[in-house]
């Protein structure tokens, strides 16, 4: 059965059962290995992608629910790893094992899109669904602040952050 998905600004037909979780369509059908499998129940956030501007757990989202929506994965956040969040993550050496970090960055990108200058409290609220087993939280928070400041110094408002293309 074929589904039409719009992933990272490309329309792609997928031959998968409609109830297949979006995570496994992305990983196994489209070869996008950035979103990670951690729990399968939406409890760890490793699979986080952005759907129509909202951070979404792709492991509990049926692929059929993403039809007609804009899906952005870590691979589509920037062409070359130069998104302010990606830069801040690299410079502050946020990752330890790194497995959760694509999901963390996608949750942070959704946050900054709506809240370009978040407080610690707002960051905690937005990021609490993303588990980091290695305990990199302090650096994640610092990196989000750094990215927010960097985006502010180069561009006004939230335009530096992810914005879904018009459907």
């Amino acid at each position, binding site marked *: 059965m074929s589904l039409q998905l719009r992933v990272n600004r490309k329309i792609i037909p997928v031959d998968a059962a409609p109830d297949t979780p979006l995570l496994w369509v992305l990983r196994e059908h489209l070869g996008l290995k950035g979103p990670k499998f951690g729990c399968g129940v939406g409890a760890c956030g490793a699979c986080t992608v952005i759907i129509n501007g909202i951070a979404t757990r792709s492991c509990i989202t049926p692929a059929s629910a993403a039809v007609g929506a804009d899906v952005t994965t870590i691979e589509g956040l920037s062409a070359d790893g130069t998104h302010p969040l990606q830069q801040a993550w690299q410079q502050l050496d946020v990752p330890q094992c790194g497995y959760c970090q694509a999901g963390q960055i996608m949750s942070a990108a959704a946050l900054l899109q709506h809240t370009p200058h978040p407080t610690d409290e707002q960051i905690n609220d937005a990021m609490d669904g993303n588990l980091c087993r*290695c305990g990199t939280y302090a650096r994640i928070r610092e990196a989000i602040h750094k990215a927010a400041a960097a985006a502010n110094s180069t561009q006004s408002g939230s335009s530096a952050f992810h914005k879904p293309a018009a459907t």
Partner: protein
Amino acid sequence: MQFTRRHFLKIGAVAGGGLAIALYDLPWSDIRPFAEVYAAGGLSPHAFVHVHPDNTVTIMSKDPEIGQGIRTSLPMIIADELDVDWSQVHVVQADLDQAIYGPQFAGGSMATPINWEPMNMVGATGRRLMILAAARRWGIPADSCTTSGGHVYDKAGNRSFTYGELAADCAKLPVPDASSISLKKPSEYRIIGEFTPGVDNPAITTGKPLFGIDVTVPGMLYAVVQKCPVFGGTVKHANLDAIRRMSGVRDAFVIAGDQHTNNPAIEPGIAVVADTWWQAQAARLSLNVDWDTTAASPTAPEQSTESFNQKAAELLPQQPSYNLRSYGDLESAFRAPSTRVIEADYAYPFLAHATLEPQNTAARYQDGKLEIWTNSQAPAGGRGQVAKTLGISESDITVHMIRAGGGFGRRLRNEYMVEAAWISRAVKAPVHVLWSREDDFTHDSYRPAGWHHLKAGIDAHGRLTAYSQHLVTFGDGKSVESSAGIGPNEFPAGRVPNYQIGYSTMPLFLRTGPLRAPGSNAYAFVGQSFLDEVAHAAGRDPVDFQLELLANTYDGGGDRYYLPERLADVLRQVAEESGWRKRKSGNGQGWGIAAYACHLGFCAQVAHVSVDSQNRVRVHETWSVTDVGSQIVNPSAARAQVEGATIEGMGHTFVAVTLKNGTAHPTNFPNYPLPRMHQTPKMNISFRITEYSPTGLGEPALPPIIPAITNAIFAATGKRIRTLPLTHSGFSLA
């Protein structure tokens, strides 16, 4: 006792291996090459360093990367001694080949102590080769040459070569004798000691395929293995025909496995193989299996945390079945009229590793040869296990080491590697085995639960005169399950005039294993909480009380790696940095302190907590001081290890795996509440630089944070935490 670098490593070559075996259950085959390689005269720079004509340098990373940053820090050491710029360096992961690279495993905070001097020597030998090649070309003595930034310079003139220009000459030179190699002085380091982001950061932050789970091989199928909810249970019957007809399924079959629970080569279960992992997983959810739950042990279905609690309560007041160390006259000391006796029971639960990347491995069996892509922490042990189980030669197995999404000791076990190899051979295709989170929680090798009875005597001056400890643990008679034993020298052994430590066992069918700082992560909680309790009973400050003990030596002291002055120094320093003496606990605010030595490192931690009227605990701030010797290789990764250990230790106060009717609970993260971002305290992290050879940081900072937190809760509320998790005492983490 102080070690020079060479002296320490000479000891480490023998005793370090012994340590690793004792603590981490690593097969000797993982350690032996270390001794052999050094006996044969060191490692060749040609294996580790490849200098290209354009003067870029490829450095091989020898060990498994599990998040400890080893893929960055070991190449940093080589690059600095080679005397190239870090920007010239490209790091490539080595395959498993211990004859070339020495021991290749991730465990026990051993990578730095094992590799520090060898990696220095590899780099410095490479630099020496460059100098010899340049000197020969110029026809001048070697000592007329110097190096910098990947160039050799003629000290007398204005001429130079890039390393790239000399690489071909170097390849023809014999490896110079180790005695002709001189190492840099620490003041000459330009890469070691600098904040260096991980070499994989660009790939991690852009979602490139990098982890074990991301490996694909042409023609590869995916497999799940359904195992019995009761560990080691076997399959009597299952609806395999129905499963084989499901969408995408290629095969479904029973793996007979074996029932040796402590380290089975391959666990019994049902393999479901499909075109995609999701198809295999969806099919497996339709399995109906009739299990023989008594296959591993006739009592397995009755075993539970509750029954262990009852049995432990019977054993604890009795004398230990096995004595580990005793000296002095304990009974007289306890009976003396001036002695005040304090007794307490402590307990802690089973814990899961819960690496965020579930267990997985890809394997391709073809024409009697195996190729394996794995994120194992002990790939050599895994290769041995695969060879034995499949009945093939180790030399027919190639192992590629892939970055792991966390390790924490879980991946020292290799059953997923055996599963992948077994299933690939059975279905005659490359196979990627991937466990679900539920598989991972219910078939872990758990941190063993434990129960302790402690007894202390204090004299009229508030000094500790006698100390006894009885551990009730799991085992069969004298032998204990993996990571379930305690050593004879547990603190305050050798620091108190009268001492006894021993243990008793009860049988367990479940598999246990090392979890980050094995043993220490439990014994620090027990010992440092009880010591805090005794200090308070004696009306003494816990820091003064502990420093007094650390200044004592009785019955020869502790083991030779336990250097009390190093522990005393980090304790003093953390007290100073945290303002310990000025802190006023009470009214829901508390400061707690603890210190512990393990894995050749010495760490003290202070925690500041608040407890609200609903008994919700918030850890606001921590201070740590760690002594891991003379040199921090990568300050970023070093701090990260302490940050991670602190957060993980916080988690240990609040999570538990419980056994009910032979089955482990929970089965996923919602009921295993590991710390989240809002619970992250402000962490003040210091390293105390000492003269000792550099040692590892994966583990030493974890054990003391747990009692620092529970002691702080006592300071805030007056309620002593003697059982983990905190929920047992009515507390929760806010």
